[in-house]
């Protein structure tokens, strides 16, 4: 009997917790409704498409290819990123550059984002700092897989 009474008290304590959450959160919601500034909000969630969370500077987002001052890609088609990529999603075709300083440049540079796992190894491997993952862009969903295959123009632009 005493045990049952103890359970009953615990049950009431549980409902007090949820009631407290309800009352406190409703208080903040009403404050927001009347445009009164408060220290915290009624909900801890973020209303995603309208409100966005700030991305950390070292967050690995969509890749971009860096360019030289003359607008050509910095990449020298050394194939290090292709070698290191664990998802094997980078495809580079080298071509000869008439400029003796450069000698090699990528005629095609394709990243298949549907395979990419955003590990950032390509950025680490690159000796020329030609590829970076700092665009801050994280929304690039597409309706078809083909649209996720990014070529040179898309990666530079």
């Amino acid at each position, binding site marked *: 009997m005493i045990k*049952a009474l103890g359970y009953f008290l615990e*049950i009431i304590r*549980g*409902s007090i*917790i*949820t*009631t407290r*959450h*309800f009352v406190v*959160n*409703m208080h903040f*919601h009403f404050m927001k409704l009347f445009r009164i500034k408060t220290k915290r909000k*009624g*909900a*801890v*969630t973020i*209303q995603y498409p309208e409100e966005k969370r700030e991305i950390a500077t070292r967050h690995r987002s969509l890749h971009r290819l860096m360019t030289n001052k003359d607008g050509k890609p910095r990449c020298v088609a050394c194939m290090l990123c292709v070698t290191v990529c664990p998802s094997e999603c980078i495809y580079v075709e080298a071509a000869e550059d008439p400029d003796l300083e450069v000698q090699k440049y990528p005629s095609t540079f394709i990243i298949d984002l549907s395979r990419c796992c955003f590990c950032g190894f390509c950025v680490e491997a690159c000796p020329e700092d030609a590829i970076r993952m700092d665009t801050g862009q994280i929304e690039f969903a597409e309706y078809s897989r083909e649209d996720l295959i990014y070529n040179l123009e898309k990666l530079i632009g």
Partner: protein
Amino acid sequence: MSETIIILIKVVCALVWFLLITLYLTWVERKESAVIQDRIGANRASILGIRIIGLFQPFADAIKMIFKEDFTPRFSRRFLHNLAPFISFFFVAITISAIPFGDVLRIGGQEIKLQVMDINVGLLFVLAMLSLGIYGIILSGWSSNNRYALIGGMRGAAQLISYEVALGLSLIGLIMVYPSLNLSTIVHYQGELLFGWLPKWGVFLQPLGLLIFFFAALAETKRIPFDLPEGENEIVGFFTEYSGLKWGLFMMTDFMEVLIVSTLLTTLFFGGWQVPWLAADGFHFPWGSEWLLPHGIVVIFQVAAFNIKVFFFCWLQILIRWTYPRFRYDQVMDLGWKLLIPLSLANIVATAILLSI
């Protein structure tokens, strides 16, 4: 002729009130659970870009439910399978006819009772109809020919016998205090005053009865602390084989039961449409002052009081649903047979002794 029209209007009004609030209870449940869990909840449904904190959500849900495929499995008993949700829906929907929304409304020399049917045995009628609702659940579990659905239906039946006795017995004390089975008469009795200042509500005269009735009624709604027939995470429940609108009917029945239990709690234990110290001609406060009001205002006060009390109990039930985990199968039996029934019997004896003194 005018009698018939008045009855028709009353039926339509009561049903619209009932179904509309049931529809919005689905939204309230989502929102309230969100607020309890520090979330925001359903607020995306919009018409032409206008979204008033998600108030269109129930309609979006209804449209989705209507356009979903209504699938009847090949191995089910087709007739009973189709019949079950309607039985379960009908028997709950019909109970609203016995609930008094307010006192009489006088328009043009005519007295209209704000109650669809003033049945002499209204309380028995409501209890009987609520118990018949279990037929839908047992039938749906049985006719689906699915093992899990069958377990759900059987659990529903086992739960029924453990709470239904306590549900009936807990109200006997109340019937002894207000000697009537007529719901409007019970509400009228609750308008009197105790010691000259305390309204004679059931909660003050029958606190133990209220507690037992509340527990048993929670079991009646078959929602989370007592959701054995469903048990989403273990057996899915008696509606495993239902989809589309028929599943929607089961879900509506759930919320309708919440609403009906709230109206019953209000009517039986919290004075129904009674506002403390409000008589037919205005407020008569116990400290002697008076505030006389015209008839129309008094009726509005009464209906508003009824609605506020009902909404409070809907809120409380949703809070309970989002607070507690599910009772185990044997725990419900223990609670029903070992705790609630002896307590309700003790309540009857105590009430009888107090009444005879």
